[in-house]
């Protein structure tokens, strides 16, 4: 595959060839990602439909399979309304500020051993930094719209996102301590201690795993933490004045972030592309032929299902409850578990710690 790319671009000068190959890799990642986003919206409606004993969308195409395409076509032909009291420049800029970081974070996500666009040492730090940038898009969107609902939604969602980012950051610190590396590939390799799914970090870091995922749900403003949108109180939150493709860009960013949280949760706690039966007596060799990327995608799908399941199950939290959960429950819990992990790492306890170079 990569050889083919080099032969096709052989006529270019060196620097141009390098950029062309990077662009090819990016489009190879981007197209499945955007398709995944489109069909995640379809899956969401379908799965929540079945959970509520409805059939969900079933009119467009066989069993509704063309629904996301119809949706995007419809959005394309809608007018982009810019409110007259809005700040035009920021109003149009903020969807981009939400969208670009949501995509750029994918540059360091490995899907298989060394199947990654940018194999950098500071991978996890980069992800934490770039996902924090998304909050700018939301705050600016709410401010630029000059509408009270948008403004309230934006400050609510800004405060919520930064609160849960702390709990999330602490959970990541636990993972880094256990793996002794910031590189996502090496974090996965550190989980391959030959005990199958019991050698992954979800077991020794169980509280951090749960906190990480719940914080991820709160970070992406998904139900039950979706007070930023809160249809019954502030209509749609920060994007109430957005329409057409400008709205679609926010929507794409939100779903790309959901898939990103799912990918990170699988990489950090569920061993990424490692087989769950790796090193186990009978099942290990039996499932040896399955390529790593299949395991990775299966784990991501599991987390995405969890996202939808949460939305179908729980009523919305009240805002003070959200802030209490973030500050008074998650932060003390993660602090305690970081110290526990520190003792485990220094004491080289169990099969998880003290094997790697870390």
């Amino acid at each position, binding site marked *: 595959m990569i050889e083919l790319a080099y032969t096709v671009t052989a006529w270019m000068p060196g620097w141009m060839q390098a950029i062309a190959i990077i662009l090819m890799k990016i489009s190879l990642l981007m197209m499945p990602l955007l398709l995944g986003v489109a069909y995640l919206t379809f899956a969401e409606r379908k799965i929540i439909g079945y959970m509520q004993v409805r059939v969900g969308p079933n009119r467009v195409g066989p069993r509704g399979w063309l629904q996301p395409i119809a949706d995007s076509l419809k959005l394309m032909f809608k007018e982009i309304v810019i409110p007259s*009291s*809005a700040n035009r420049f920021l109003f*149009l800029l903020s969807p981009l500020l939400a*969208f670009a970081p949501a995509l750029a974070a994918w540059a360091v996500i490995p899907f298989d051993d060394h199947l990654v666009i940018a194999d950098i040492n500071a991978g996890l730090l*980069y992800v934490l930094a770039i996902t924090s940038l998304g909050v700018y898009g939301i705050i600016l969107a709410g401010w630029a719209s000059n509408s009270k609902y948008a403004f309230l939604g934006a400050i609510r969602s*800004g405060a919520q996102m930064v609160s849960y980012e702390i709990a999330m950051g602490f959970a990541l610190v636990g993972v880094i301590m256990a793996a002794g590396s910031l590189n996502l590939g090496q974090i996965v390799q550190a989980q391959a201690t030959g005990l199958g799914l019991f050698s992954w970090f979800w077991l020794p870091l169980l509280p951090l795993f749960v906190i990480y995922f719940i914080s991820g749900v709160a970070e992406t403003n998904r139900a039950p933490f979706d007070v930023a949108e809160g249809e019954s109180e502030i209509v749609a939150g920060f994007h109430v004045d957005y329409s057409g493709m400008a709205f679609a860009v926010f929507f794409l960013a939100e779903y790309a972030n959901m898939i990103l949280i799912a990918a990170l949760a699988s990489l950090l706690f569920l061993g990424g592309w490692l087989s769950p039966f790796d090193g186990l007596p009978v099942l290990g060799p039996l499932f040896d032929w399955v390529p790593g990327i299949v395991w990775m995608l299966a784990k991501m799908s599991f987390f995405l299902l969890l996202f939808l399941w949460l939305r179908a199950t729980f009523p919305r939290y009240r805002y003070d409850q959200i*802030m209490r959960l973030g500050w008074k429950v998650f932060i003390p819990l993660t602090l305690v578990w970081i110290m526990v992990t520190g003792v485990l790492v220094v004491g080289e306890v169990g099969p998880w710690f003290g094997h790697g170079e870390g």
Partner: protein
Amino acid sequence: MLENYLPILIFMAVGLIMGAVVMAIGYLLGPQRPDSEKGSAYECGFEAFEDARMKFDVRYYLVAILFIIFDLEIAFLFPWAVVLGEIGLFALGAMAIFLLILVVGFIYEWKKGALEWE
């Protein structure tokens, strides 16, 4: 080393360009018929009687300040966490003292009511 970061730079540029292109498509394909009703800010059918950039609760501001402190702390923890296995007990003790100081501050803000939302 640094060339590993080139794909990231390109990726960000692609993200920005894609977003811009998508919105440009919407602008070109969709109609553009603004009128005064359509251009008014959405407020459930009411006329917006004042500017939306109003005063807001000071607690949001407090959350932002506390966030900066804790996020800095996480930034301090990251390099420590990477080398913890190599340095061992000394690193653990040093960071325990650091976290202790922070926990004292955390308890103080908690007791002061900075985390209360009635």
